[in-house]
């Protein structure tokens, strides 16, 4: 028994079927066999036993399902049967102090204290501060095998993370990624909300995905409050989300060019990324879309003059991005470096539950805009861009396909902006309710799940950034690669550290 629901549909919490652990496991395993993916799996830390919820997402049927159970102490881990939940179960063990027995890789995720004092999976005292990066790293032994440790502070202007390579000569046998350095305690601080800080947490969960996370949050609030944002606001959110995608994809293609030592495209795209950011700033004053998306709609409207300016800049930027990016595809030395570097098979991608650009570059048609459309995407469809080779080239090429489609979308929307207001009033949130929202951010699927208590405050708020699903993909892509290809592989994924660490 599961509870079917739509993206952004409010339901009473009591309707979520509560099953025993065996039935719960069976449901999750069965749904994943049918082709669903686990969009979220989390526990609600409290005093007694731990309620656990799974959000199952079937992209083919467009169906979301909720299923729940309760755990006290330990339970048989799902990971051996459903590998894609491996990080969710580690998170559950860390946050709630319950033990998924038989988990093959039960290590801390963010190196933080348990949210249930007195229950710690690794038996640490309640006042003991976990030491970040101190864990039993996987080790390969043998003659001529050596270990390379990188980070948390890296050479570039980039967020911190620790990477541990097991190498034989130049070849990487295994890479282990250990994060948590960016942990700011967001999920803990969201409890009891919403309050005046909540939207600002959302805008900075992953600062390069401000519009994506803010939209997922606002859709959750609107569902819980029974508010329908006006059509014009929905379109403007879509435009801002695609501009965010355009800026980041363009920046990534430039950075990839830089990582293979091809400077023309690097410097052209570095500037063009800013041109897209400045288009967002034209709408709302902030290059990152800060202050634009709010519950009930958007804060800034655009008049005819501004639309005209946006249109003009969009066409100019597309022209310049086209010539800059085509240089990549027409330069054999660039293609030679991208092709067959960091390959992931479709099967692996499916098994470990990859999402977003990275999944589409493995041939998986996963795109929340198509599968679980919300807002303007319910009415306007953007074709899903895929490529089949699963290498760094595919990850670059899918970005280029998406740039073209996002420009077409923005152009079309600017030409047909519905009239009317841009913001509706938002009332109090429903009591004892639940909602799941999915938004396709530029990296991939953003999933937010909110549960309210008897007074309409957040009893729990779960954030899943696409990076949470995808970091393990990077680790696998590095196997049997040259260690010198790490920067290139890393950039081709370009995952968020803070979105993972929260």
């Amino acid at each position, binding site marked *: 028994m599961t509870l079917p629901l739509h993206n952004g549909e409010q339901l009473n919490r009591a309707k979520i079927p509560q099953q025993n652990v065996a039935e719960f496991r069976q449901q999750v395993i069965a749904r994943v066999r049918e082709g669903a993916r686990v969009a979220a799996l989390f526990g609600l830390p409290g005093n007694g036993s731990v309620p656990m919820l799974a959000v199952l997402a079937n992209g083919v049927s467009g169906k979301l399902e909720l299923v729940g159970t309760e755990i006290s102490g330990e339970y048989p881990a799902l990971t051996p049967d459903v590998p894609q939940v491996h990080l969710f179960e580690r998170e559950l063990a860390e946050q709630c102090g319950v033990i998924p027995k038989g988990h093959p890789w039960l290590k801390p995720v*963010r*190196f*933080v204290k348990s949210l249930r004092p007195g229950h710690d999976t690794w038996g640490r005292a309640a006042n003991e*501060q976990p030491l*970040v990066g101190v864990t039993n790293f996987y080790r390969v032994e043998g003659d001529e095998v050596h270990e390379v440790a990188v980070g*948390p*502070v890296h*050479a*570039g*202007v*980039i*967020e*911190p993370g620790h990477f541990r390579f097991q190498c034989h000569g130049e070849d990487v046998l295994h890479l282990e990624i250990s994060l*948590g*350095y*960016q*942990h*700011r*305690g*967001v999920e*803990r601080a969201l409890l009891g909300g919403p309050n*005046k*800080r909540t*939207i*600002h*947490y959302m805008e*900075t*969960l*992953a*600062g*390069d995905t*401000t519009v994506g996370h803010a939209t997922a949050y606002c859709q959750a609030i609107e569902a819980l409050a029974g508010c329908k944002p006006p059509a014009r606001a929905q379109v403007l959110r879509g435009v801002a989300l695609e501009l965010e995608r355009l800026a980041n994809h363009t920046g990534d293609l430039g950075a990839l060019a830089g990582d293979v030592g091809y400077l*023309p495209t690097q*410097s*052209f795209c*570095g*500037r063009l*990324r*800013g041109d897209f950011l400045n288009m967002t*700033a*034209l*709408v*709302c*004053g*902030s*290059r*990152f879309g*800060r*202050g634009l998306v709010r519950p009930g709609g958007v*804060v*800034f409207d655009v008049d005819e003059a501004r639309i005209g300016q946006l249109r003009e800049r969009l066409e100019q930027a597309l022209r*310049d991005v086209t*010539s*800059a990016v085509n*240089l990549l595809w*027409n330069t054999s030395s660039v293609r030679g470096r991208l092709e067959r570097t960091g390959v992931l098979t479709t099967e692996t991608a499916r098994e470990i539950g990859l999402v977003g650009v990275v999944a589409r570059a493995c041939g998986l048609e996963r795109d929340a805009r198509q599968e679980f459309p919300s807002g303007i995407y319910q009415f306007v469809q953007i074709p899903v861009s895929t490529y089949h080779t699963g290498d760094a080239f595919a990850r670059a090429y899918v970005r280029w396909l998406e740039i073209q489609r996002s420009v077409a979308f923005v152009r079309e929307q600017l030409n047909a902006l519905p009239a009317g207001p841009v913001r509706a009033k938002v009332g109090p949130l429903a009591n004892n309710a639940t909602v799941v929202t999915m938004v396709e951010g530029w990296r991939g699927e953003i999933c937010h799940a909110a549960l309210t208590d008897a007074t309409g405050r957040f009893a729990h708020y779960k954030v899943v950034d696409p990076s949470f699903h995808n970091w393990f993909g990077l680790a696998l892509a590095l196997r049997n690669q040259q260690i010198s290809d790490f920067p290139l592989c890393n950039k081709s994924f370009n995952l*968020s*550290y*803070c979105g993972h*660490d929260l």
Partner: protein
Amino acid sequence: MFRNVAIRLQQGHRTIGFPKGQPTLPDRFRGVPVVDRAKCPVGCRDCVEACPTDAITIDRKGLRLDLGRCLFCTDCVEACPERAIRYTQDFRLAGRRRDDLILNGESLKQAEALDKKARRLFGRSLKLRQVSAGGCNGCEADVNVLSTVVFDLGRFGIQMVASPRHADGLLITGPVTENMRLALKKTYDAAPAPKIVIAVGACAISGGPYINHPEQHNGADNVVPVDLYIPGCPPHPLTILDGLLRLLGRLEDGRPGA
């Protein structure tokens, strides 16, 4: 080859004129805020209540705005019944001391240059090691942008370097999470003296949206001494550039200095 040259010409010259000319910013850009205290109704605390980071307080003289905490959002502007708070286009926000970021009726004090000796050392060549200590990648992204052809940081002799051993100082973003505290301290210690520290963004100055979370340390100056604060969430690249140039004594009153 010819194609590359043709595309190079098509892409054009893109480096901005700043600091020689004044840059154009989008009309909705939120720079230095101004408060018309005369408009404040007696006893009104609407903006104080609305501010997500408690950047606004009221003392005897009226509203007091801490730009080190300010997220440059529109919450106070929207909450004010008299429209007494508005943002200007002025992007020059940097200050040398934490107290310089507090607006209480007077105009903002521009960041002073380093002393003569430090300017002799760093004025024409400044190498910085960037450390993200809980930053959301907003500040990091707009620091990165300075190295693109648009801002071309290199023309001022300023460069982001890969190792603290090669650096004259640190540029810190993020509130300094507990999990990054030791790494930040070690990076600071690894840079040779004399060294300077620049805190970029609301998080690195005060903790920003994460202020008072036990998982972080309310900004860089609770871990290492800070020489320059650059407010914003994130600060515009021009705000960062302006701050860096002022610190090096290469800008005076918006015009290029000696």
